[in-house]
């Protein structure tokens, strides 16, 4: 390969050939006061955190060889390395050494590819050495050098032995020094033989940057190789050895091992499963030893046990923190607790599944994790000493990570980010290194940042390049632009209907009676694609963000707000550019014809849903009121037709928080009221989306951006159907209750029939559970899929067209629609190139999922804040029954919680009947708990062994204690394993206190001003086009997912709209309040002065 490359390098034209070998920019590109560092691949792979964070490391040369190896290893690391190379302040350069005449080398006989690359790196370093020797430093650079040297010597005198202090320049100080950085001892030695200076990364930092000792914390420890270089220190290994790459490959080929993705069971940290591609039952992995250091999402090789040892999935609930509670929490300890080591599959009546053990890791799914450090028992409180500490990740099912730090005092009590370096078989914990501090534990800003980071949501302000793409302010629509558009400003009465306080209005409607008795109905969508052109920085940013993210107390915009809330927003009484879909509809709402055109509109009024409803109900007989009534009548017909086709109405348990205007802490929760006007808007948006989908599919048969919702797998409903049968007495239909999931229409009918007059909420509950059995809706590129159907909406074709301000998919659809209207309209390769579009689609689906997860985490966070210092007893319903506990849902708060009756290693106080999914009294056999059963629970916030605050849910009624005659002193219904904030452990407050020792506190002023800034969003959150796919699952869907079924979370259903709309409401309220309060404050201040 390499050989062929070189032979094809040379060019026909002599001038071009010379250009091809243009080496790196001359040496003036380097910072003067530091040597030039050539890093090898392992440094780039493992020390990326250090390279990114350590601003003191400058003059780094990244070789093409290194880039190539990194790119082959991990796309993520590659993009980080690339980002680093574009940082001009750090003087990081790429040298295309493989294409340079003097640094290209051929692999010699007997040399492994790795050795060849190491040699290539040395050759390039050597070339740099010789090259720079011929480019002497300028006088200014020498002066700068002397200065830096003096500074360093001074610093070093205090911290490092003088012998370690090195000079920056070569011998006579005339030329710049080139240093090879490599942790490979052999490579370093070889480099020294060539006359180069070479160091390991830690040695280099100690020698050249002694004044920055904290950098050493960022250094990842050299990873123990697979080849048995692990250090045993005389102990027995805890875990079996991982096979190396070639063994795994051979084993998988021979059918000896199964390769697949490992999914950690989130309900039970002691088990996981490995999926084998699309087909085949997932392989069950039970017990920490069999899991053998695999992380969630890793690609692993599994060896199956003989069939006699296969088992069913354990029905135990084992919380990660609960398991940790049994652990000694000693960062130096390396013995597994009995429970963790046991791999006996607990008794269970589930289906027997293949069981196996992990024998090798093909690809790690490690990323950087956010969380906090645990204080050590051995340290005196407040006086932590440097050494090993345990890190608890925010993700609950992750093992604790051991890190080494020299600055524990500044890390304890903080949210920090940690990267995993490795996990050798003698160690109970994976080892990692600290990357950066986010802020104090419990601080709202910090926690918000954490959840954005954890979900990989970009929240930085828009870059200057993006802002430069914005049209000038004030923007004047040119007469030429108006001439190119259909002018609807005078001829049509357009209005918008949105949640109250909405600032980014992306849709508006009009209706007009025609002479033939039909109606002309227009949907006008903000013309975002007019302002966001393909190939610009703003387009790239929007494509990367994919969607606007709505958290409880803020909004992270996809587009800068000048566009989103001003220029594109279809505000009343101003001229706005729009993309219109105009139908002629019969009074029965049948489409006669449809037209698409770019237009200019002037909305007459921006209604809220409530105002629009009031207008319809009022006695007014003006044109707006009449129009609204016509639209409503048409929308009812559309809805009826959709329902007849089998569209589903689903539910979510989400509620919304009323936020305090000052602190934006939640004050109370409420459920949003749905009006008919919500459905009015929704129906026309759905109609617009389906109409546009048809149009763009016709124009781009193989590259249309569409959205589909696959029909659910009936097997997913099996457990639910069993549970319904067992609890049929709770419903009106009793034993005659049927639940048919064979088609969307039968499912809709079944849901409508499953009512209970005694308890109307049961129907909602059933819709929530049904939602969770579904697959998620997703964007796709029409050429890539065979089935285009949208199951939830019962639509053969669907796309997203109506919210381009907050969704990038809609921007693409706008462009495709525009290109489809005329050949002369601007087009772009991204519209017709399936590969490009597929990449965009994949990213959008990921971003949407992340946005949902982030929104849910935000709800979780606010739920915790809401229940802080509260103990609430509330009605709840049983969502699922397990061997040793139940999962309950509290509708009032949208909270889902686990109630555990006993620890995993104790016998459960109740008998579990897996067939009917009920829990029965062990002696009398009476039914105690079953699915759908109403119960009462006590909710409070507690802190567990991992110093994690969590929502503690206990069963109050039926009371197990009285039922079983257990001593009341020890509440059997309490989650014993979690409740461990005992005397010998530090409480959360201790941790908080620990970290704050050296902070100057009492900075109340800044705090409150920050709090006032917090509720900046003041926006609506629109979810009305019913195909939301927003997470309706609310607080706890994540907990409810079994690993193999992780892809669910979908949501298409109008009910969902409620939650999100409601959130918007709270925001606008909060903002209004904040304003008045701020005014009051200002007055008060003025007086005191």
């Amino acid at each position, binding site marked *: 390969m390499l050989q*062929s*490359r*070189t*032979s*094809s*390098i*040379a*060019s*026909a*034209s002599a001038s*071009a*050939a010379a*250009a*091809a070998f243009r080496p790196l920019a001359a040496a003036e590109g380097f910072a003067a006061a530091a040597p030039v560092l050539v890093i090898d691949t392992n440094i780039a792979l493992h020390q990326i955190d250090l390279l990114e964070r350590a601003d003191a490391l400058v003059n780094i040369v990244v070789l*093409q060889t290194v*880039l190539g190896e990194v*790119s082959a290893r991990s*796309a993520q690391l*590659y993009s980080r390395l*690339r980002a680093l*190379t*574009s940082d001009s302040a750090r003087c990081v350069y*790429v040298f*295309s050494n*493989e*294409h340079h005449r003097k640094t290209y080398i051929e692999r010699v006989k007997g040399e492994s590819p790795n050795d060849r690359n190491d040699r290539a790196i040395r050759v390039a370093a050597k070339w740099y050495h010789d090259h720079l020797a011929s480019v002497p430093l300028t006088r200014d650079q020498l002066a700068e050098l002397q200065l830096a040297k003096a500074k360093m010597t001074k610093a070093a005198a205090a911290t490092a032995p003088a012998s370690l202090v090195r000079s920056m320049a070569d011998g006579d100080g005339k030329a710049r020094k080139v240093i090879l950085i490599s942790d490979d001892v052999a490579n370093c030695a070889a480099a020294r033989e060539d006359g180069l200076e070479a160091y390991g990364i830690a040695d280099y930092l100690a020698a050249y940057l002694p004044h920055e000792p904290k950098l050493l914390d960022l250094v990842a420890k050299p990873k123990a190789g697979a080849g048995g270089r692990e250090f045993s220190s005389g102990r027995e290994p805890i875990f079996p050895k991982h096979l190396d790459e070639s063994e795994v490959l051979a084993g998988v080929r021979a059918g000896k091992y199964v390769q697949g993705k490992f999914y950690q069971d989130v309900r039970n940290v002691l088990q996981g499963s490995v999926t084998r591609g699309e087909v085949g039952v997932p392989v069950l992995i039970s017990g920490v030893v069999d899991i053998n250091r695999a992380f969630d999402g890793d690609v692993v090789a599994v060896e199956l046990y003989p069939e006699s040892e296969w088992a069913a999935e354990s029905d135990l609930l084992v919380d990660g923190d609960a398991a940790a509670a049994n652990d000694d929490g000693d960062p130096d300890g390396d013995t597994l607790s009995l429970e963790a080591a046991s791999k006996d599959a607990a008794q269970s009546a589930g289906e027997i599944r293949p069981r196996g053990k992990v024998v090798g890791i093909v690809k790690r799914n490690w990323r950087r994790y956010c969380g906090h450090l645990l204080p050590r028992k051995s340290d005196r409180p407040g006086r932590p000493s440097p050494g090993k500490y345990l890190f608890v990740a925010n993700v609950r099912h992750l093992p604790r990570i051991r890190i080494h730090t020299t600055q524990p005092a500044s890390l304890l009590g903080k949210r920090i980010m940690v990267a995993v370096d490795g996990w050798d078989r003698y160690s109970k914990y994976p080892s990692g290194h600290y990357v950066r501090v986010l802020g104090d534990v419990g601080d709202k800003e910090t926690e918000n940042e954490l959840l954005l980071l954890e979900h990989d949501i970009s929240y930085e302000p828009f870059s200057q390049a993006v802002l430069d793409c914005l049209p000038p302010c004030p923007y004047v629509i040119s007469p030429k632009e108006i001439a190119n558009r259909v002018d609807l400003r005078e001829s049509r009465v357009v209005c918008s209907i949105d949640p109250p306080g909405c600032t980014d209005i992306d849709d508006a409607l009009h209706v007009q009676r025609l002479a033939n008795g039909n109606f002309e109905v227009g949907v006008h969508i903000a013309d975002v694609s007019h302002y966001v052109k393909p*190939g610009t920085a703003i387009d790239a940013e929007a494509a990367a963000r994919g969607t606007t993210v709505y958290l409880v107390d803020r909004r992270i915009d996809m587009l800068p707000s000048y566009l989103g809330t001003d220029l594109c927003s279809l505000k009343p009484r101003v001229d706005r550019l729009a993309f219109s879909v105009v139908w002629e509809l019969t009074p029965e709402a049948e489409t006669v014809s449809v037209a698409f055109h770019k237009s200019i509109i002037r909305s007459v009024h921006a209604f809220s849903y409530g105002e629009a409803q009031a207008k319809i109900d009022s006695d007014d007989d003006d044109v707006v009121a009449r129009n609204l009534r016509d639209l409503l009548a048409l929308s009812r017909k559309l809805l009826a037709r959709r329902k007849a086709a089998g569209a589903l109405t689903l539910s979510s348990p989400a509620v919304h928080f009323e936020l305090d205007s000052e602190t934006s802490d939640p004050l109370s929760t409420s459920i949003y009221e749905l009006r008919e006007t919500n459905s009015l808007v929704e129906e026309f948006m759905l109609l617009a989306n389906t109409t546009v989908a048809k149009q763009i599919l016709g124009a781009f048969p193989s590259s249309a951006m569409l959205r589909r919702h696959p029909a659910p797998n009936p097997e997913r409903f099996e457990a639910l159907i069993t549970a319904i049968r067992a609890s049929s007495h709770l419903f009106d239909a009793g034993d005659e209750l049927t639940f048919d999931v064979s088609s969307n229409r039968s499912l809709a009918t079944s849901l409508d029939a499953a009512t209970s007059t005694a308890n109307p909420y049961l129907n909602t509950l059933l819709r929530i559970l049904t939602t969770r059995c579904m697959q998620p809706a997703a964007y796709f590129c029409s050429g890539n899929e065979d089935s285009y159907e949208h199951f939830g909406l019962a639509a053969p074709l669907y796309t997203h067209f109506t919210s381009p301000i907050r969704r990038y998919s809609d921007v693409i659809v706008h462009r495709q629609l525009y290109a489809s209207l005329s050949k002369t309209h*601007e*087009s*772009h*390769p991204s519209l*017709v*190139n*399936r*590969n*490009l579009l*597929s*990449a965009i689609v*994949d*990213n959008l689906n990921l971003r949407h999922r992340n946005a949902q997860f982030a929104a849910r985490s935000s709800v979780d966070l606010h739920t915790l804040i809401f229940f802080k210092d509260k103990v609430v007893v509330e009605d709840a319903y049983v969502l699922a029954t397990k061997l040793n506990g139940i999962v309950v849902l509290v509708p009032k708060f949208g909270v889902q919680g686990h109630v555990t009756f006993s620890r995993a290693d104790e016998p459960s106080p109740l008998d579990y009947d897996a067939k009917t999914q009920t829990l029965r009294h062990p002696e009398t056999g009476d039914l105690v708990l079953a699915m759908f059963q109403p119960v009462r629970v006590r909710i409070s916030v507690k802190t567990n062994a991992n110093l994690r605050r969590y929502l503690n849910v206990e069963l109050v009624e039926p009371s197990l204690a009285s039922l079983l005659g257990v001593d009341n002193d020890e509440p059997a219904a309490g989650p014993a394993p979690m409740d461990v904030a005992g005397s010998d452990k530090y409480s959360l407050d201790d941790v908080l206190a620990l970290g704050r020792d050296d902070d100057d506190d009492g900075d109340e002023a800044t705090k409150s001003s920050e709090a006032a800034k917090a509720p900046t969003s003041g926006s609506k959150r629109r979810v009305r086009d019913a195909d939301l796919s927003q997470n309706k699952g609310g607080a706890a869907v994540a907990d409810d997912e079994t690993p193999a079924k992780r892809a669910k979370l979908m949501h298409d259903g109008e009910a969902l709209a409620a939650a999100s709309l409601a959130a918007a409401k709270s925001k606008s309220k909060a903002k209004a309040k904040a304003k008045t309060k701020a005014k009051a404050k200002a007055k008060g201040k003025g007086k005191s002065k």
Partner: protein
Amino acid sequence: MSRREFVSPEGLRLDGRRPDELRKLQARMDLFSRADGSAYVEMGNTKVVAAVYGPREVRRASMAKHDRAVVRAEFGMATFATGERKKSSKGDKRSAEVSQMLVATFEPVILTELFPRSQIDIFVHVLQADGGNVAAAINAATLALIDAGIPLKDFVVACSAGHIDGANVLDLNYLEDSSGGGPELLLAMLPTEATLSLVKINDRIPLDVYDALVSLAMKGAALIHEVLVAKVKEHAHQQAASLGTIV
């Protein structure tokens, strides 16, 4: 989704070229003694031989045109030309299409009216395929026709250009062609007047990209022309030297 970087941020392509650079072009003429003219062209790792027979009497009288020569072409790939051995592709649709393109390209350029009732056969065989096969085939055929002494209006030089990940790149190799995913444009040009005799695009492309690709490919073709002219001159000198005309 990890995608290959076809043009690195440093501005180098996978094989080290810049976007507007050609691969190394090498040519030889007069390889075979049986054919009236023959040539061998290497564009990077794409290797092509061409042989020309004629003008000679038509094989079948029914083919004969009373006022000009008939041009026929046959394009084929060696079974070993690609990574996976393939059955000879002489008769397949794709090869037949290229054969037709060769005829359409050369018929107007050859002064066929000088040779009524005769035929000229062009055979092109790809020995190693690494992208730009058709362009290399056309260039080789031009040299072979010149070697055969067939009067031409001008050289015909061909070059390809493609649009990959937003960049316009010249002379795609196999990797860029097959996994780049962008449209590719093939163009054959009569360099003296810069007239185009063939333009072929394998995908829909926006008009502005089309214009950019055409001008890029024309620049490439002009460079190829320089190399071919030099080659022909050198060959002519050698021939002359061997005949003793020039000392």
